């Protein structure tokens, strides 16, 4: 049983190591990456089944008993995140076949992609804060590599900003870890849950909570720490920005959820208000920033920020329903967001640019692709019966339940503004006739789209529809995850074994 916890981490890491060896052969690189991603998905499915049947389970690496060694833990939330990481990894690997050229494969695109997936899964499964730091670093190194692999000017420019801010965030993270260890004498999250109420110095504890909030806030791109994201996410190849957009900020959100439901599950009225205000401001700035943009991927980048606000909102409200809303939102958002980035790559393939002003007429020339954009875009904006509608509805309902009317209003209004951005892309890219200038650049455009690109986009779109139509099942799953999050004792029992 404990293998299930190790496999989703070790499989991509082995795949990544093997990919270094075979990277000169493009065909073998792809086959290896594809096999790795498929096995990763199988491991993720087994893990999620196991957790759903038996509840939270943990394993102690090297048989060191719980508070001393490194613990790997899977509850509903982390199992769902691992599963979805594997799905996105598979989709992006598929897409890379058409999107990534020989040079980048030889420089190690697939190798870094798999290490990134392994690092993300490690962060989701670990039950130890220092180990979390190590997985963050694994993930960061791989993402640094992927971001600048093409070495174009824009990539290096975006890369500098992304790298510097992320290094600062990890420094804050490790400062907070060191001080927390000094206060409590443990690094195990379950043991921290038991020890933190005994700490006498409450002031320092609050300061540490804010340090963690800042460190993870930078990763998750919440207000006012988001500026690096729209500066970097539109620069790498499309498949890379899709996996970044889908997963990286969500690791920050996951860490925030873990810390503020388990480690700092204490009376934090001050933090509570801070989180609520940050959530509201994140939603608003993200959506307004998007309204000002005129480049396909930069609009989508700003929307990541506004969507992250919704997830923080659910965490800040702290009720069971709100946490379930956050989990639902995470599942829905990762799929939809990665898919929208992939669609932007399809559009670029057709017309050679991401600039809205220079795009047009795709509804007429490729109606199928317009449909593949329409469904995730309006799911993002929250149209029933698509997945985003249910996610937003649960969160708004949760805010109304505890009489946070202004938050419910902001969440609904931001949903409406999202429609504005999505209709802008729809109108510019798909609906309006193709601009005259496009005729001149006919030679760079592709007439047909590779099946390697269409297959993952279609699969993710179908998944969005399934989540929308089968919302009750997903909601039940999310409620169970929220149940575990709001009762940390279950987690502690699974880890400490008593």
């Amino acid at each position, binding site marked *: 049983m404990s293998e299930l916890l190790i496999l989703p981490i070790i499989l991509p890491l082995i795949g990544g190591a093997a990919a270094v060896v075979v990277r000169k052969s493009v065909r073998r690189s792809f086959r290896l990456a594809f096999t790795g991603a498929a096995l990763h998905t199988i491991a993720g499915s087994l893990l999620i089944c196991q957790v759903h049947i038996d509840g939270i389970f943990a394993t102690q690496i090297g048989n060191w008993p719980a508070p001393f060694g490194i613990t790997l833990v899977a509850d509903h939330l982390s199992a769902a995140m691992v599963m979805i990481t594997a799905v996105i990894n598979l989709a992006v690997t598929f897409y890379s076949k058409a999107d990534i*050229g020989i040079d980048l494969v030889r420089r190690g695109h697939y190798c870094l992609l798999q290490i990134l997936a392994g690092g993300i899964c490690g962060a989701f499964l670990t039950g130890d804060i220092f180990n979390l730091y190590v997985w963050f670093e694994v993930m960061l190194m791989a993402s640094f590599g992927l971001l600048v692999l093409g070495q174009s000017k824009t990539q290096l*420019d975006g890369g500098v900003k992304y790298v510097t801010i992320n290094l600062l965030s990890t420094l804050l993270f490790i400062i907070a870890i060191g001080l927390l260890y000094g206060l409590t004498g443990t690094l195990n999250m379950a043991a921290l849950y038991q020890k933190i109420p005994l700490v006498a110095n409450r002031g320092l504890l609050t300061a540490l909570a804010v340090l963690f909030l800042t460190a993870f806030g930078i990763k998750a791109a919440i207000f006012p720490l988001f500026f690096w994201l729209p500066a970097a996410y539109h620069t790498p190849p499309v498949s890379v920005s899709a996996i970044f957009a889908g997963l990286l900020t969500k690791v920050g959100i996951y860490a925030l959820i873990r810390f503020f439901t388990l480690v700092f599950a204490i009376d934090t009225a001050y933090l509570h208000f801070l989180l609520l205000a940050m959530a509201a401001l994140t939603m608003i700035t993200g959506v307004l920033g998007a309204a000002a943009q005129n480049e396909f991927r930069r609009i989508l980048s700003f929307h990541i920020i506004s969507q992250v606000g919704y997830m923080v909102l659910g965490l800040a409200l702290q009720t069971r329903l709100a946490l379930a809303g956050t989990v639902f939102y995470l599942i829905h958002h990762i799929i939809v967001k990665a898919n929208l980035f992939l669609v932007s790559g399809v559009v670029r393939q057709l017309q050679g640019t991401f600039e809205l002003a220079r795009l047009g007429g795709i509804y007429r020339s490729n109606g199928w692709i317009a449909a593949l954009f329409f469904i995730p875009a309006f799911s993002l904006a929250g149209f029933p019966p698509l997945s985003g509608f249910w996610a937003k509805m649960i969160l708004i309902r949760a805010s109304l339940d505890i009489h946070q009317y202004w938050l419910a209003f902001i969440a609904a209004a931001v949903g409406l503004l999202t429609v504005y951005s999505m209709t802008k892309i729809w109108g510019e890219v798909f609906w309006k006739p193709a601009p005259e200038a496009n005729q001149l650049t006919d030679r760079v455009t592709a007439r047909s789209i590779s099946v390697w690109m269409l297959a993952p986009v279609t699969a993710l779109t179908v998944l969005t529809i399934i989540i929308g139509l089968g919302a009750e099942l997903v909601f039940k799953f999310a409620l169970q995850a929220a149940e575990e999050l709001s009762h940390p004792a279950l987690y502690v029992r699974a880890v400490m074994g008593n």
Partner: protein
Amino acid sequence: MQTMCAVLAGIMVAGSIYLILDRNLIRFIFGLILAGNAVNLLIFTAGRLESRRPPLIPDKMTMGQELFANALPQALILTAIVIGFALLSFVFILFYRAYQALGTVDTELMRVAEDDGDDYRPESGPAGGRPV
């Protein structure tokens, strides 16, 4: 000793912040190195300093007899140093490549990724060379 180390770490962090806030990337790197060392010192100090009693357990016993030095912070620092070294090497190369490509180390002048999209260079096909 503990107080001195704590104050020293504070001074180092202050210095590193001053350097990190500079627009020049070279100074940023120096700030980063300083901050990394300050953090290591901080972890070391937060784990309590003890120079007289080594973390050794006497023969035929399962626990130390009295309070002894904690070895874990040193293990943490070791990990942090290794990771920090890897990151630093990467950052050096990245900044050097960025300097070659963009011709500047002033972050204010690095506006390529966030321009207004005026220079239109249509391109399709896979990123990075010929299709597979």
